[in-house]
């Protein structure tokens, strides 16, 4: 378990947003669109990027694959995935807190 946490802490921005998108089950293309919408177009990911990251995450047990009624692939986060995401969000929240404290200190 510790190995996974070390590997995914800290996460790259791309990996974070991909895992973050899977707080609800999505199709591969849904992940791309969701991230584009969330970041107002700043993060535009190619399907190659998604494929590579999802393959790695699946191997590490962070996500599982299902298929919907039309046999299209759906990605879902596992319990381990949720824990990894939570750890990362906590880390980012800590950073954000430091930044806010610094900015408020200056004004």
């Amino acid at each position, binding site marked *: 378990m510790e190995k996974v946490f070390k590997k995914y802490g800290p996460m790259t921005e*791309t990996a974070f947003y991909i895992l973050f998108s899977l707080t609800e089950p999505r*199709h*591969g*293309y849904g992940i*791309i669109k969701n991230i584009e919408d969330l970041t107002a177009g700043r993060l*535009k*990911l*190619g*399907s*190659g*990027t*998604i*494929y*590579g990251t*999802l*393959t790695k995450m*699946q191997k590490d047990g962070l996500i*599982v*694959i*299902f*298929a*919907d*009624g039309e*046999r*299209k*692939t*759906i990605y*879902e986060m596992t319990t381990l995935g949720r824990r990894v995401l939570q750890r990362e969000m906590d880390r980012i929240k800590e950073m954000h807190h430091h930044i806010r404290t610094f900015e408020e200190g200056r004004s």
Partner: protein
Amino acid sequence: MKKMKWLWSYRIEETEEWLEQMAGRGWVLEGFSPLLRIFSFKATEARQLRYHIDYKASDDGRLEQAGWQTMAKTKRWTFRSAENPQLYPGRDALFKRFRLHMYSILSVLSFFFPFLLIPIAILSLLTQTEPTGIHLLLLLAASIGELGLVLWVYAFFRKQERKLLGLPEMWKARKTNHKKLRIGWFYDPYHTKKWLQKMFDEGYELEKAGAIWFYFKPRQAEAIRYEIIYENKVDPTYYHIHEAAGWRLVHTSSSSVMNSTLWAMPHVADEEPPAITYDTRERQRIVKKNFTMTTVISLILMLAQSLSISNYLLLEDDPFSSLEFISSATALNIFLVIMWLVLYVKSLLGYRREMREMRDD
């Protein structure tokens, strides 16, 4: 009622359909014995069921919620049925097993070839004669037989693999297609992509490509982007993800191992061209992987060449004097080697240009 089905796990969709048909006739799956491949059924009223066969299944809770019932279970296999499922388990574990079996069996069958010489050797030892014409004929027949067997087994597996990967049926070229020949194009992606763009500018859009033939149709899109991707291994997810993002599969090589695929995406002229990846470092990795594969294959070919040359030199007393040295076989060999070297140099130059272009972006 019990039924035996061999090779059922290599024809998973057919097996599932068969189970569904049985359910439709009032026979529902009760048990499974993996050793003898025996399926046991119990009689009930006819039911419309969907079956799904899972390999190394882990998560049961989620699927139970979606209406799946486990009908039979062994250590590795889980047979589930549901009335009208909106959620299906993934096929990735099954695909990995299928691919492992496919390539192991083909490897074993291929490497069996040298052992064909053993019966011939034994035969000549028993009859105390030198290998004669009859022996060579037997060897030839056995070789052709073995080659035929390997090809037939490959065709069977590949057909099933295409189904698992979700690939479309084999496409037949139309008379209206504009054909162009290009040998070894997947070893030289940079120049191939440039050439395809040039063809597009001249009004030809690529419809399908084979190992050496390219089939064009009249251009319909405003602009197009072609990508040539090499992967050491591909699985069903690979094709799903790219297709869902809008990439059209123009070509994929006939193996899911050491696979080269050509994708196309038409797009609106003014917008930024689509790409398989927008990350420069990832793009560089893709290009490098392709070139590494080309280099490795070149090294293997060179090794095989030098082995056969040194083998020849060892066998002959005075190799340079005999006419066989200048035989047609050797001439063809030299010609092919030169062709390969030319291709490799082009590939190297294309690789360097592509890497440089990415750095300058």
